[in-house]
Every structure is written in structure tokens, then in C-alpha cells.
């Protein structure tokens, strides 16, 4: 029995905490992706680049002297208009084509390519890193917890709860869900559908940008970082159900825990194939994911 507790305390629990940190980050990225798909029916292949953009912006602003606390608010705020413009200028152009899924996928894929090279053009190819805003650690029950990671988990949870509250408990949220469920009906009821769409896209990418700000001090910043999360984020969205917030949260936690714990027993190289395998199985068994779509859940 003592052995089991020891094992839990020194091996399993730390691994779970690591999985949790990663999970919060993945959920933040996936949340934006699932809202964008659930509401706009748009596949945003450039979502990872918005995560990267948030990180790059935080590095530049930090270098100008902006304190970290302000960055957490400023960077997502900056990304809102950027996302809004992208939706109105780019996405809307192909929104009304018959095979919207394919064309938006292709368009955002191209956009992602451009963004990655733009990052390289502006910030250079070498890695950058903002200073750790909170240093120090705390040791609870033998678990070594850097304070910054505890902070990240806290902030992440707040954001996720906040998003869920906004979507399900506010009027704006009701408008978003209505537009997702039935666009024309919502429009005829006075919901400003265009605004809601653009706003939802902007919100989605700014969530990704926020994840970028949070992770930059521990994962560093470089032009190809957008690719870090993309496969995982898409897997979470698919497993959780396109358009479902609860799905993104649960799938995000589950998949990152699976990855973290599995790497204790098998070579970590198999982490990606396992995640991919879960995605394939889910698509074969229950293609709509664990939960339904935004409006339909």
C-alpha cells in the first residue's frame, strides 16, 4: 500500500500535473478552434499561427517594458481586431462557396504559410523568450510545483469557465448559439449575424493568442511554433465534438493525461501516434465526437 502511495506521489502525480499544464494550454487553443468551427463552420488551419502571433506579440511588448499582467489583457485585446479583419476580409470571400469546408481549409492553410514566413521576416528565425514573470516554486506533499505553472493552471481554468459562462449564460452567448443553430432564423430575429460571426472568429483566435502569451516563458517562441499544437488541437476538437465547449475541455484533459501517463511506460516517440490513433478510432466509432455541436448540444 505504501508503495502504491509512493508511486502515486513521486511518479504519477507529477506526471499528471505536467499533463494538466499542457492540457490547459491545449484546451485554450482548441476552444477557439471549436467555437470557430461550431459557429462559422470554418476550418481554421492557421489557428496555430495565431497562437504563435500571441507569443510573438508578448515578446515584443515585454521588450518594450509592458508588464506581464498587462500583457495577459493587452495581447488578446490586440488580436480581436486582427481576427475580426481576417474574418471579414478573407473568410467571408469563400464563405458562400458550395464546398465551404474545403475552400476555407485551403484558404486558411495558405494564410498559415504566409503568417509563418511573416513571423520569420519580422522577428527572425532564431528563438526568443520573454522572462519568467513569476519565479519560485512550492513543494506540496512532495510535489514540486513551479509557481508560474500553478498560475497558468489557475488563469486557464478561469478563462475556460468564463468562456462557458459567456456562451451559455449571457445574451451575447445566446445570440452566438442561435446563429450557430439556425442562421437565417437568427437573422430574422434581429441577431446581427455578420457581426456575431466575425466576433466569434476574433474571440477564437484571441483565445489562441492568450495561450501563446501564457506558454511563451516556458516553451519559448520561434516561427514554426504554430505547428506544435495543431495536431493535438484538432484531435481534441474532433474527439470532443466540433463546436462543443464541454467536449473540448474534457477531451483536452483526457488526451493530455493519456499522453503524459503513457510516456511513463512507453517510449515518448509513440505519444503522437497514440493521440492520432485515438482520433482515428473516434472518427470510426462516433464521428461527431463525444458531444454535439455548439448550437445543437
Amino acid at each position, binding site marked *: 500500500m505504501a508503495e502504491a502511495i509512493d508511486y502515486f506521489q513521486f511518479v504519477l502525480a507529477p506526471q499528471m500535473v505536467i499533463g494538466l499544464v499542457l492540457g490547459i494550454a491545449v484546451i485554450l487553443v482548441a476552444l477557439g478552434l471549436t467555437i470557430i468551427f461550431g459557429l462559422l463552420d470554418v*476550418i481554421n488551419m492557421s489557428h496555430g499561427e495565431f497562437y504563435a502571433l500571441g507569443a510573438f506579440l508578448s515578446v515584443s511588448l515585454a521588450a518594450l517594458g509592458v508588464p506581464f499582467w498587462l500583457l495577459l489583457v493587452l495581447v488578446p485585446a490586440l488580436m480581436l481586431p486582427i481576427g475580426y479583419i481576417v474574418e471579414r476580409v*478573407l473568410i467571408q*470571400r*469563400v464563405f458562400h*462557396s458550395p*464546398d465551404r*469546408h*474545403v*475552400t476555407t*481549409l*485551403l*484558404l486558411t*492553410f*495558405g*494564410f*498559415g*504559410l*504566409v503568417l*509563418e*514566413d*511573416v513571423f*520569420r*521576416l519580422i522577428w527572425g528565425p532564431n528563438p526568443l523568450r520573454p522572462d519568467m514573470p513569476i519565479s519560485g516554486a512550492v513543494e506540496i506533499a512532495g510535489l514540486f510545483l513551479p509557481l508560474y505553472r500553478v498560475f497558468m493552471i489557475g488563469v486557464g481554468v478561469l478563462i475556460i469557465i468564463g468562456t462557458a459562462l459567456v456562451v451559455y449564460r449571457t445574451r451575447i452567448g445566446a445570440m452566438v448559439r442561435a446563429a450557430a443553430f439556425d442562421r437565417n432564423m437568427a437573422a430574422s430575429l434581429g441577431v446581427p449575424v455578420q457581426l456575431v460571426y466575425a466576433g466569434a472568429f476574433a474571440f477564437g483566435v484571441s483565445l489562441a493568442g492568450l495561450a501563446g502569451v501564457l506558454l511563451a516563458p516556458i516553451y519559448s517562441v520561434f516561427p514554426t511554433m504554430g505547428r506544435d499544437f495543431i*495536431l493535438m488541437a*484538432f*484531435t481534441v476538437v*474532433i474527439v470532443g465534438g466540433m463546436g462543443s465547449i464541454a467536449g473540448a475541455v474534457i477531451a483536452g484533459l483526457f488526451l493530455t493525461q493519456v499522453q503524459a501517463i503513457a510516456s511513463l511506460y512507453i517510449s515518448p*516517440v509513440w505519444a*503522437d*501516434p497514440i493521440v*492520432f490513433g485515438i*482520433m*482515428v478510432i473516434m*472518427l*470510426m466509432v462516433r*464521428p461527431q465526437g463525444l458531444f454535439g455541436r455548439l448550437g445543437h448540444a
Partner: protein
Amino acid sequence: MRDALTNSMRASHLLALLLVVFALITAAVGVAMNDTFYLRLATEALIFAGLALSVDILLGYTGLLSLGQALYFGLGAYISALTLMQVPSFWLALLVAILSGLALGLVGGFIALRVRGVYFALITFGLAQVVAKIIYNTRALGASDGMTGVPIINVNLGFTSISSASPAGFFLVVLTVTMALYAIAAYLLDTPFGRLLIAIKANDRRVPFLGYKATTLRLGSYVMAATIATVSGALYPMLRGFVSPELLFFATSGNAVITVILGGVGTLVGALYGSILLTVIKSVIGSWTEHHLIIIGLLFMSAVIFFPQGLMGVVRPKVAKWLSRGGTS
């Protein structure tokens, strides 16, 4: 029966013929000028055109966007390299590639064809990533360095033999193989099989009522595309003498998709012209700036927004109209 599909196919054939004529002229000029590099570059463009062709079969005719077609291309390249290093025979390598393509296509199709649309794209993407990573870490396959040492081979045509080191000669060999792949694809797609595929793409719920199983048809198309990609990949090590894991990476798949969009989705011949177009663009822009991805990305985005039918998508209907006017009288 001369319907729209047949008309547009005939237009494609005419354009393909034009391409062949243009290619032959290029080869002649190349030989006259004792050129090596440009002929080899053109050969490479044709090899990647084969990959683009396989993407077009899936996207343009079956309605499936594959973001990981480089998987088959790269595997074809590795299989060909391994075969050639044991037995330097062109025909054997080609045969092994065809058989592997069929087998791999069946396996891949089984995994990927459970779903369509976005999910299909993501599964193909993930599949290519996973296999690429496995190869990247496999020492027996050269790991991250890939494998050099694929010998120069002689393509035995019975009456003569062409060396893979001969720029013009091998260019003609690859031209023949690529056009053969095009011809096979075009033929198969102009049959009832092809029409059924287009029917599924338009509305796949009705087709079973006609007595056909949509999944089997899609699998057929997928296997055909996989085999074409594998055979094209098999030609690569013959030209360049080596293989590396980068051949399976997303960049290769992405380039194929860009090629198809620029060239014209659903035209088959668009994949060929698109590959030449992209090779030329990359070469020109590449020597001009190192940020060529921005330019190609913007070009691609404009194509998706403003010219979704691509180059051939604009040209072919005009040719088809011209042909049918000449035909019916």
C-alpha cells in the same frame, strides 16, 4: 455518348497532347544546348506532377481533400530506392512500386475512408506525419539523413537502353511514365466508374439507390490515387540518387495541393501544368528573395478566392467548347 464529362475529358487530352509536344520541343532544345540542369528540373516537375495528379483524382473527382498524399509518394521513393540498391532494374522498381501502391492504398483507404471532408483531410495529414516520424527515426532507412547511393540505372527498352543519368533521355522516360499515369487516370474516370464517382461527390446518398456501394467506389478511387502517387515517387531516387524523410513531410503534400489548385481542380491535366507553373515560380522567386513562402502563399490564397477553378479550369472549358463546335456539325 458525348456528354459534358466526355467533352471536357477530350479537351483535357488535347491540352495534355499540347504539353507533350511542348515537352518534346524542350527536350530537343535541351539536347541542342547540351543542358543538364533544366532538363533535370523539368523531370522533377513531371515527377511531382504525378503526385499532384493523385491529389486531383481525390479532390476533383471524389471530393476528398488529402493533406497527406506525400505519404505514398515518399514510401514509393523509399521502396524504389531499396529495390534499386539491391537490383538496379527500372522495370522491377516500377513493378514493386505498383504493387506496393495497391497494397498501401488499401490499408490507407481502410483507415481514412471511414470519414469524409475535414475529417478525411485531418486523418490523411496525421497519417503522413506519423509514418514520416517513424521513418525519420528508423536507422535501417538512413534515419534523418536519408539514403544516398541509389545507383544510376539503365532503362532497358529492348531496342535501346537509356541511362537515368542522361538528362534528355531520362526526361523522356519520366514523361512517358507520367503521361501513361495520366492516360490511365483519364480513361478510368471517363468510364461508368468515373461517372459514379462524380455522382457520389455530388450527392452520395442517392447513389446506393442506384445499386452501387459508395464506399467501394471511393476505395477504388483512393487506391488508384495512392498507386499513382507511389509510382511517381518511385521515379524520384532514379533521378536524384537519394531519398530522405522530407519527401513525406507536410511541405510535399502541401505543395501538391497548391499545384492542383493553381493548375485547376478536377481537370487532371491541370495537375501537370500546375506542377510546371509552380516549379517555374519557385525557381524564379527563390533566387530573388528567401521569403518565397509568403509570395507563394499569397498566390495560392488569391487562387482560392479569385480563381478557384485554376489555370486549366479557365482554359479547358474554352477548349471543350471549341472542340464540340468542331465535332457536332
